[in-house]
């Protein structure tokens, strides 16, 4: 200690101390100027991370509603044993066209925003017209690929909400047929509300249903069935519970598969 104080008292070391202080001050000043910008950048990064984590938490299939919530029917179907070969029945009643006892049953797991699903839609519609309800039953299951498709869940909700007013297929067709029109929209709600008006839905009920836990539960149950059946992407189509390879979804191949099935079960 004695040595260091002695050193400090010499004029030359006094000078060096003041130089050090000057440098320190300048560094501090610069730091002080930069600090708010650093804080802003940190907050920006935190904000982006937060948005990402909110999105990620949405990416998981919708959570089942808490006990005691108004989801009539959903609770009853949740633990019902399977009607088909999987343990997950999906949302019930399923959206289906054609007779329940038709020999051929095509079950599509679809995402309204996926372009191949949009391309398969007219093919299935043609088949439905060609074979008729006695031979062919079409079932649609919700399988929105969130978050890859940002509007897929909103589309599924809109279709399900229309379903609660008995117009699932009308909405399903409009959403698929106009896929290109809403695909790149930033906000799809007004567009889907437009479709709801077109098919004559009660708008107040439609808006309420879209956001309801009941609709969420239906989508969740369909997704659960899809996962249980090994669905990886969309569209995945099952012909009498047998998965059709993606390559066979071309019109002629699909028709051939149905004909083969009809021949096997006349």
């Amino acid at each position, binding site marked *: 200690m004695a040595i260091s104080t002695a050193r400090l008292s010499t004029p030359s070391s006094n000078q060096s101390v003041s130089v050090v202080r000057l440098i320190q001050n300048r560094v501090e000043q610069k730091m002080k100027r930069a600090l708010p910008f650093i804080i802003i950048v940190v907050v920006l990064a935190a904000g982006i991370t937060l948005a990402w984590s909110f999105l990620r938490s*949405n990416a998981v299939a919708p959570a089942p509603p808490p006990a005691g919530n108004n989801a009539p029917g959903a609770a009853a179907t949740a633990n019902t044993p399977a009607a088909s070969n999987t343990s997950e029945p999906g949302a019930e009643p399923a959206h289906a066209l054609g007779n329940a006892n038709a020999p051929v049953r095509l079950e599509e797991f679809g995402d309204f925003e996926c372009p191949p699903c949009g391309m398969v839609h007219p093919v299935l519609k043609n088949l439905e017209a060609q074979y008729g309800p006695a031979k062919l039953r079409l079932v649609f299951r919700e399988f929105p690929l969130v978050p890859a498709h940002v509007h897929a869940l909103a589309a599924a909700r809109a279709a399900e909400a229309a379903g609660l007013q008995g117009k699932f297929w009308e909405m399903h067709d409009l959403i698929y047929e106009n896929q290109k029109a809403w695909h790149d929209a930033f906000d799809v709600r007004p567009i889907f509300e437009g479709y709801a008006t077109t098919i004559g839905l009660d708008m107040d009920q439609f808006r309420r249903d879209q*956001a309801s836990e009941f609709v969420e539960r239906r989508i969740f149950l369909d997704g659960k069935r899809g996962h249980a059946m090994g669905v990886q992407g969309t569209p995945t189509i099952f012909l009498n519970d047998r998965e059709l390879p993606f390559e066979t979804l071309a019109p002629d191949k699909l028709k051939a598969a149905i004909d083969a099935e009809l021949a096997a079960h006349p």
Partner: protein
Amino acid sequence: MSETNPEANQLKPARRASLLYGIASIVSLVGLVDAIYLTVEHLSGRSVRCTLSGCSEVLSSPYASVRGVPLAGLGALAYFTVFSLATLAAFGYRALGKLLALVVGLMFLTTLWLLYLQAFVIGHFCQYCLLSALVTTTLTVLVIAATRASRTAAATQRG
């Protein structure tokens, strides 16, 4: 001691302004988180979990977006702007205080309009929107106080 006291008094309004800008920047973070949450929920089409009843009515109303841009997204942008300006102002970039006052003033007017829509047009309130209204109102009060303090500080410095 007697020499340093008046100097400290002279610095007081400036310090008060810094403090108020600092508080404003922290308060704006609450609004930012709120707005980010609503934007993500809006874009994912997911229903927002609310303890008040009117959330889905408000958030799925046509007023929830402006020409396809979700209002919550604009809110997030506005809160981030306020945060940045308030932080800079707190660290001595006082010239930005005027711009901050302008942005917050516009936000306050927007808030009044949105409260009117919720009360008289949609007929439902959503708690996230009310939180945002509270944050913006608090920011308005803070920024007015900070602007006054920094004006007083500038006047005393000149004097």
